[in-house]
């Protein structure tokens, strides 16, 4: 009798000791081998690797399909390696020290400057890739220190999601200014339902959500203790004081915010297009999407650009690096961008691709508008972003739990300056 284990191999229950001893011997032999060879992974000449964070089944499959098409087009074999998003950076650094970096590395755009600053990336223009048809904001998004290192296939940003039925029933229009959003949210706050949900958690999620308020109000991450940043924070405080925001806001991630919205505990939310798949799966939920309201009518709604960029790590093998650039060229090609954008509900980086996408996903038009004015988090402060982000999250959490915005931001600015 044979048992089939989850990985599909046969397992014979007989000869118990051998079953234990043989694998043990094999494992120790492999370990010894790995230690002796210095853990250096030998590159296979015919196989190119792309490392990304597509650990979700659907994303892994979409990327797999893309790579299969690019393999065919370029006449090479490309393999996909997916690691959890939070580990991409540390894993890539470890691979750098053991000289086993992949040929193409997909990094979160906010992490790319750190990797580029360390000398780990090759500028894409040196490898023959151009930035034609890519809006300036998205070129900046993939650039560090004036050099273009990362090609985005698609980008995402934040928008205002609202429950159409709830707004219709209350006879309210979708807000476009801060004052309108405040009054609408207040009117929609009834019983267990809050008018608005957003994430002010103590991690990057919260900072990502704060940026559209900070930037639309004229604030800047390179100087946190300004009246503009304080004004944005005071606006959040006012929403909380009105009761339009739940006090749990400081403990929510963006996924929690989406859960609250889907459960009907929030009439509107600030969130990103990556939630669309989940939102659509819920029957009877009639949602709409709009640009994030601005301080005064006529202001630009400036959201944060999010998403990954494809980079070529510095492996020292210029022939392979050139091929890697070709792989990126294929993955970030117009048609692939449209396919990926339609799958993942994000906006194509390329202007022409975005135009085609707009006709195919008209319900997300507000996102395209928001992307056209959106800003990269790292364009101004580069690799300093992680320090700024930590100081900022501590500041808005202090302010939301009682401190004055000015005092909290002043401390945050000192923290960033002394951290240099």
């Amino acid at each position, binding site marked *: 009798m044979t048992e089939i284990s989850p990985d599909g191999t046969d397992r014979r229950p007989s000869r118990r000791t051998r079953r234990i001893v043989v694998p043990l011997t094999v494992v120790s032999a492999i370990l010894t081998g790995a230690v002796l060879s210095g853990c250096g992974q030998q590159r296979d000449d015919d196989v190119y690797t792309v490392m990304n964070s597509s650990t979700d089944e659907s994303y892994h499959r979409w990327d797999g399909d893309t790579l299969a098409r690019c393999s065919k087009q370029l006449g090479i074999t490309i393999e996909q390696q997916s690691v959890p998003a939070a580990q991409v950076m540390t894993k890539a650094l470890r691979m750098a020290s053991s000289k086993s970096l992949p040929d193409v590395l997909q990094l979160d755009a906010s992490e790319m400057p750190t990797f580029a600053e360390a000398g780990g990336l090759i500028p894409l223009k040196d490898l023959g890739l151009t930035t034609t048809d890519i809006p300036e904001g998205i070129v900046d998004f993939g650039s560090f220190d004036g050099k273009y290192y990362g090609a985005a296939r698609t980008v995402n940003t934040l928008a205002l999601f609202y429950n159409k039925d709830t707004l219709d029933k209350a006879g309210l229009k979708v807000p476009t200014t801060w004052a309108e959003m405040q009054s609408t949210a207040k009117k929609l706050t009834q019983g267990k339902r809050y008018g608005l949900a957003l994430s002010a958690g103590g991690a990057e999620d919260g900072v990502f959500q704060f940026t559209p308020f900070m930037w639309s109000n004229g604030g800047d991450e390179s100087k946190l203790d300004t009246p503009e940043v304080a004004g944005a924070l005071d606006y959040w405080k006012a929403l909380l004081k009105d009761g339009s925001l739940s006090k749990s*806001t400081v403990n929510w991630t963006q996924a929690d915010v989406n859960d609250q919205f889907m459960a009907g505990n929030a009439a509107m939310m600030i969130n990103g297009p990556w939630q669309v798949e989940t939102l659509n799966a819920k029957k009877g939920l009639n949602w709409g999407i709009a640009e994030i309201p601005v301080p005064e009518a006529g202001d630009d709604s400036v959201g944060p650009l999010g998403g990954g960029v494809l980079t070529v790590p510095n492996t020292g093998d210029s022939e392979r690096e050139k091929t890697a650039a070709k792989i990126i060229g294929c993955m970030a090609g117009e048609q692939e961008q449209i396919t990926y954008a339609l799958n993942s509900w994000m906006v194509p980086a390329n202007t022409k691709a975005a135009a085609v996408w707009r006709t195919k996903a008209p319900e997300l038009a507000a996102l395209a508008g928001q992307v056209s004015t959106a800003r990269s988090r790292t364009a101004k402060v580069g690799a300093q972003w992680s320090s700024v982000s930590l100081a900022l999250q501590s500041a808005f959490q202090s302010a*939301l739990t009682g401190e004055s915005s000015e005092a909290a931001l002043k401390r945050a600015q000192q923290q960033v300056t002394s951290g240099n």
Partner: protein
Amino acid sequence: MSSTTASAAVPHTEPKAPAAGAAKKPVSPRRAKRRRQLAQWGFIAPAVIFMALFFGYPLVRNIVMSFQDYSPSTFFTGEAPFNGTDNWSNVFDDGLFGKALWQTILFTVGSLVGQFCIGLALAVFFSRRFPLNGVLRSLILLPWLVPMVVSGIVWRRIFDQDTGVLNSFLGTIGIGGDTPWLTSTSMALVSVILVNIWIGIPFNMVILYGGLQEVPKELHEAASLDGASAWRTFRSVTLPMLKPVITVVLVLGFMSTVKILDLVLALTDGGPADSTQTLGTLTYQNSFVQMDFGAGAVVGNILILISAVFAVFYLRVNRNEGK
């Protein structure tokens, strides 16, 4: 596997050793001694090599790293210039360090006291015989089986101020119902401690329950014949007999509590406003968010030092008991 090799070895060597010595030419005592010593070292060697590779090396590396400017570029260039005590002074100058240290102390002491008292009470409770004893005892083990991160995420939902089960329960029975468990800077640390107590109870209960089984029944009988009350018996007979077990529970509990990281990350991410930041989250933040590995190593070393002090204390206590 070890039991089979041992039982196979015993009949193999015992009758043979004297017979072989008598029949063949005698081995000189010195050579025999040397061979025995060599064999002894052969048995110790794997453990020593393992310790040196997997404990010694990282430890030394971590100490060296805390005096280096270890940044992402180090991974490419292999160069990490020494910068004296810069990392240390940077960490100590940052106001967050003092806060995290103080919160770590509160967290550790609070968790240990809570876990131990409840664990001991349950252990005493379950040492009596009553129906369903075994079932209930195994149910209490559940928190131990759940991965930390899962507990963290579940408790975050339970603690939610508006939609959490806990507040709606408290509201139903008429006491409060609007407690800001994780959303107020004064309450969040208490909530994290409560969850950690919940997680730690099974461990304390199991070990102490085991210890209680070792206390001879006769002593309790003698005490009750002498007319001692239940409390007096517990204090003068049970507790002293449990002392070695209590030391083990507290020291092991301390070492696993002081370095807390995953639970805090899942529950609060160190927030709100750093009110649940501990040395564990600080070293994580320094190393893996800011990518300042030198500063991360400093906090890591401090954590190791604190644990080492307690390990030495534990060894001393054990040695004194052996005398």
